[in-house]
Each structure stands twice: as C-alpha cells, then as structure tokens.
C-alpha cells in the first residue's frame, strides 16, 4: 500500500534533514517515555502514541509558516511537539499536573496553544474536521492568507461530519488542507474491513476536492507533497486532501490487545519502512552528520525527554480550587 505512491527524487537540504531528524527523534523518544510512564501509573486514562507516524507531522510542519494553524484528533503529542510546544508542558499535562498545558484538566487528548497556533487535541473521532474547516473559514473571513492543516485518521474518514465539511470547504473555497493519517487501523478495524472506497485521497471527488496519496513513512515525500499542497491552497484558496500512508507501531491506546494484526506485520514495517531510520541513513549517506554526531544528538534528545518527565513528576497536582476555574470565561 505504501509503495503505491510516487517516488520522490528531490533531496533534503542538510539543515532541513537535521532539523527533521531532531524533531522526529524527539517525538519518538518522548512517546517511548510516555509509554513507560503510563506503565508506571504516572499517566492515566487514554494515551495514544504517535510512534511510527513521525514523518507526517514533522514534514508537514516544515511546509507551513507563522500564522498557519494546526488541529488534530487525540493522537496529538507529536503534533504538539512539532508545533513547538514544550515537552515539559506536554509531559506535565500527561501526568495531570498544574504545569501542564491545560493545567492538568485536559490530559493527553486535550491540549491547546494559541501561541503555537495549535488548536487541539480533540477527543471525538471526526470532530477536528468541521472545527479545522472553521479555522480555515476564519482565515478566509479575515483575508489573512493563512492555511489550516486539519488532521484526522482513516477511522474518522468514514464520519458523516467529514463530508459535511468537505462540502462547505469546497462550496466556500476555504483554505484547508485535510491530512488523513491513514495508519491502516481505526482502533482494531482495518481500512480493508471498514471502508468501501479504500483510496481515502479520493474521498473528496464528489465535492470537487483533489487529493493524493503520499508515502507518509518518507519525510521527503511528505515535504514534497506538503509544499505543493500548501502553495496551491495558499495561492488559490480551496481545500486539498493529503492522504498520508503511515503506520503506528504501538496499539491504538495503551490498552490495545493487538489481536487484529500480526507481530510480523509490525516487524516488517519497523525493519523496512521506519521513517527515522530512513532519514538517518540519508543523513549519513550524504555526510550531513557523522555517526558520532548523531550519537551526541541522540543523547541531547534523551536528556530533553528525561528532563520533561522529571519536570512533570516535580510539578504539583492542580490545586483543588482549580476545580471550578475556567468553566466560563469571565470577561471578553
């Protein structure tokens, strides 16, 4: 499925390659740490890890500029880190602590940062799609030339509200890029078992919305498609669909029994299509960095992640008085 997409010959610049590598590695190490902390009972509730999908959000983030907006579903830690939100604040939120982005009231699925133009973090499957379409509506209303990246998964792609949104986005030519992160499974139900039209990039056809499938395991393919899509949408308005063919290595959430796929399938992708390994090879082949330098980078990132867990552990629980705060905004 992943190999179906076109091969990109374009090469990343040295600085872009290193930048992408650092961000992807940060997300992976962060998510591994979150997984460990969950196992130790420090993180509660639902926790959806992004491991395996890193190239998608990191690549697309490199295609947009200040003022552009990002909104996604509940598998959102990677998006937040890619948007530049601090690992400390995200981890503290996972721990349910006062220094978390949502002061401990949102948790894994509900974090926001106006500063980083990150609009959540939404826990209801499909909900990010009309909301993201609304962000794009506001950009058109304000005539500010910003674009919105609206992420959702292959499972959400079957939701009715997605098509209500597609209709309005095309009708009103809203500057919205719909990014379908197709990691092959909606919880445990594969695209094969849930979707009549399996090429999700073509789901906009009846509305006149163009789309394409992209190898979401390859950062260069992601950036190539992302740049084209952003330019098109920013210049001409109107929506566009990027279906990112990707894969999650971990379960849907932490309590996934993984009965719906084989270990071999996961192993196969890890060994042959891992986005971070591929980028690492590219960096070494092109002599952008030596193995030694990469080791140093690795160590630095590990330290950032360890520090975030320490920060989270040291942060106090929210004060009981917080219970009744922010139900309503008090003034305009």
């Amino acid at each position: 499925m992943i190999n179906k997409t076109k091969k990109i010959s374009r090469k990343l610049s040295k600085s872009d390659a290193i930048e992408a590598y650092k961000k992807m590695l940060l997300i992976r190490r962060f998510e591994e740490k979150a997984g460990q902390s969950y196992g130790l009972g420090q993180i509660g509730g639902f926790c959806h890890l992004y491991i395996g999908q890193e190239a998608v959000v990191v690549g697309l983030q490199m295609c947009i500029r200040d003022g552009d907006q990002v909104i996604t579903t509940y598998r959102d830690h990677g998006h937040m880190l890619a948007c530049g939100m601090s690992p400390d604040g995200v981890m503290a939120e996972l721990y349910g602590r006062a220094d978390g982005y949502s002061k401990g009231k949102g948790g894994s699925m509900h974090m926001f940062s106006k500063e980083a133009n990150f609009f959540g973090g939404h826990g209801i499957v499909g909900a990010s799609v009309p909301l993201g379409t609304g962000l794009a509506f506001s950009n058109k209303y304000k005539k500010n030339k910003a674009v919105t990246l609206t992420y959702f998964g292959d499972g959400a792609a079957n939701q009715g509200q997605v098509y209500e949104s597609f209709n309005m986005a095309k009708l009103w030519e809203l500057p919205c890029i719909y990014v379908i992160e197709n990691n092959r499974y909606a919880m445990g139900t594969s695209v094969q078992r849930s979707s009549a039209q399996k090429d999700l990039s073509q789901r906009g056809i009846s509305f006149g919305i163009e789309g394409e499938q992209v190898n979401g395991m390859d950062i260069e393919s992601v950036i190539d498609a992302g740049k084209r899509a952003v330019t098109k949408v920013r210049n001409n308005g109107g929506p566009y669909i990027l279906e990112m063919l990707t894969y999650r290595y971990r379960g849907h959430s932490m309590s996934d029994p993984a009965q719906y796929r084989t270990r071999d399938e996961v192993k196969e992708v890890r060994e042959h299509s891992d986005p971070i390994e591929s980028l690492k090879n590219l960096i070494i082949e092109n002599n952008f960095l030596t193995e030694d330098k990469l080791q140093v980078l690795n160590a630095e990132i590990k330290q950032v992640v360890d520090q975030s867990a320490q920060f989270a552990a040291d942060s106090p629980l929210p004060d009981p008085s917080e219970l009744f705060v922010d139900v309503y905004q008090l003034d305009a």
Partner: protein
Amino acid sequence: MKTEVYMPAMSPSMTEGTLTKWLVKVGDHLKIGDPIAEIETDKASMEVESQIEGVISEFLVENGQGQIAVKTPIAIIETNTSTEKLKGKLFTNTIDDQPKKKIIKDRVIDHDKKQDKISVREAIRDALAEEMRRDKNVFVMGEEVAEYQGAYKVTQGLLQEFGSARVIDTPITENGFAGLAIGASFSGLKPVVEFMTFNFSLQAMDHIINSAAKTLYMGGGQLNCPIVFRGPNGAAARVAAQHSQDLTAWFSHIPGLKVISPFSARDHKGLLKAAIRDPNPVIFLENEILYSEQESILEDNNDIISIGKAKILREGSDITLISHSISLKMCLEASKKLARKNIDCEILDLRTIKPLDTKAIISSIQKTNKCVVVEQGWSQCGVSSEIISVIMENAFDWLDAPVLRLTGKDVPMPYAENLENLALPSEDELIKMVESLFE
C-alpha cells in the same frame, strides 16, 4: 359558476394575513397556477396562486388590507364565463405594474424612529444588526438566513446590509456548520448560528457539548468559544413530535453553556446583545409563537440586559409563579383570573436558565411562601425540577405548601389539535393547581 378564493393558511402558526397587493384585475382570465395576490404572513411574503381556471369577477378585500383571517373569502372567480361578458359590468380596480416575481420584500433595517412598538422578531433582528455594526467579527450563519431572509423572517434585511460574507446560507448540515462555526470562534470570530428550529440542533449536539462547552476548561482556559446558537425552541403548532419540543433542560444540564430563554421583545434584544458579547457559548432559545408579539420599546434602546438575572413580571403577595418564555403568557392570563378570586400572584420571568438566578427565586418565595413552576418541557429532570430543588435547599422553612410544577406531559408531541392541547400545560390546569394550594 362562482368559486370563492380564500385567504390560505400558509404556515402552521398562521392565523391571519395581509393582502399586500392584487396581482390581477377584475376581468382577467386565470389559468391554474397563475398568481392572484401577494400575501404577507408572520413568516414570509408569498403569492397566492389560482387553483382553478376562470375569470376574476370580484375582489372582496382591498389592496393592503390586513388582519384577514385564514379561510376568509378574498375574491370570486367565475368559471365558464367569458371575459367580454364581465367587462363593464363589474367595478374595475387598478393594480400597479410592479414586478410580480419579487417574493421577499427588502426592508430597511432601521425602524422609523417614531415607532414605539417592536415585535420579538424585530427585536432579535435589531440586536443582530446592531452587534454586527459594532463588531466586524460578528457574523450570522444558518439555513435560509440570507437570501430567503430567515425561515421565520428573523434575519430579514441583514444580507442587504452586511453582504454575503457575513450573512451566510449553509447547507442543511447542522453538525457540520455548528462545528465549523465553533472552529471559527476558536480563531477569534463571533458566530451567531441560527438553527431553523432547535429540533435540528440535536444533529449538532456533539459539537455544542463536546467542542463548544468544554474546550475552555479542557484547555486550562487557553481557548474560549464566543458563539451564540439561536432559534425557535419549544412547541410550535401542529407539527408533531419531531418539530415540537422544549429542549431547555437538555442544554441547561451542561457546564460551560449559558442558556437564555426570554419572553419580552425588550429582553430578546438586550439579552441577545449580551449573548453576542459574551466570551462563552450561549444557547439563545426563542419561540416561534412569540415572534409576532409586540412590545413597547423606548426609542434608541441600546440597553444590554445582564445574563443570569430574572425579572418580576407581576408583583404579588400570595404565590409565586416561576416560568420562562411563552409559558409566561399563560401565567399572566391565569393571574388575572386568579386575582378575581383574591389570589394575588407574583410572576417571576427567569429569562436566563443557566446560570439560574437563585437569589431572585428565593427572595420571591420568602415573600409569597407558595410556588408553582410552569414550563413546556417534560417533567423528569426538567427546569422545574431544578428550581424546586433550589427552593428545597434554600427556602424550605419559608414554604407554606409543597411546591408544585406544571409541565408538558411525558409524551412525544401529538399532531391532532385536541391531543396537542392536552400535551401542553394549560391555563385551566394552572388555575386549578394554584387554587389547590389555597384550599
């Protein structure tokens, strides 16, 4: 043969109409489907078409005649009569040559300054227009709000003044456009979303509750949602279960939402303006049957009315009737009849359901020591159950009798007129209930 043409009923709530203009003259030969006259109802202006073939022989009402009851004969059509025979025999009337196909009349938004009465419908429209003039981030979105001028004529004239970028007709996709508007509000706009009726808000309930009401809290105060959802709520007339229900209690259950359900025209205006300026999601519940209610409003009344404040509609000393929206009309009527029986009712208009003005409720109970709560909504976990709890918790010692409630019956709304009347709270029931507390 003579056939009468009647003033037709063109909407479930229409009882009378105005014949704004004859589109034919006596002696004209009509085919089936030819427009005869332009009629204005409480909802829209539209054309009456001929149902038969024949010649117009007589007009029974004049151009511009108003308050013509439904089923009143307005013209006579002769069938099997030649046009020649009628000419010169019957009186003639003149009609102007205005374009016939203009169905919706454009109206100037500003009222005649001398006008001292305003309808609920106009009050809402004025609030929208004034807030849109004041803040360019305010826009109106919904089904038929623009070109059609509002399914209930509430948004009449807004498209003409503010243009299609700010008065936006949506497809019939409530979940989609509610979510879209919430997303726009996250980004700093102030959408006013019209649900043609709140029955259709059920399609959008997930976004109203999960996206609009909770995001501020879930984000630790980072992202607020300044949005208003408005439209008619409650029982309409003869439209049966899916289009006739009071959902006030549903919305009032949700932390993060504010819920307003006004009665008077003035309160509609002042509270809607406050709702639009409020930084939180506000559910603004109107009532179709109240739209044409008139109220005197002072000239240049730009008063904002605070959300969360009840109002005493009638002062009294013997019992408090607590209600909101259209049920207050019944309370006012009942109180007149009860006054003749020496029962002096105080009537409390809640105006806002969430946050509830518990202080006003308690102080009225402390004064009258008796209470009946009235609402169209269903009884279980209803607005009245909440009010009774507030009274039990805060004013138990002040009560001389148990607090009673008169609510909609616990059934889906039936279509048949007699059953529909039985399903809704009635004035007779209210009077009997009040009297039972004085036996």
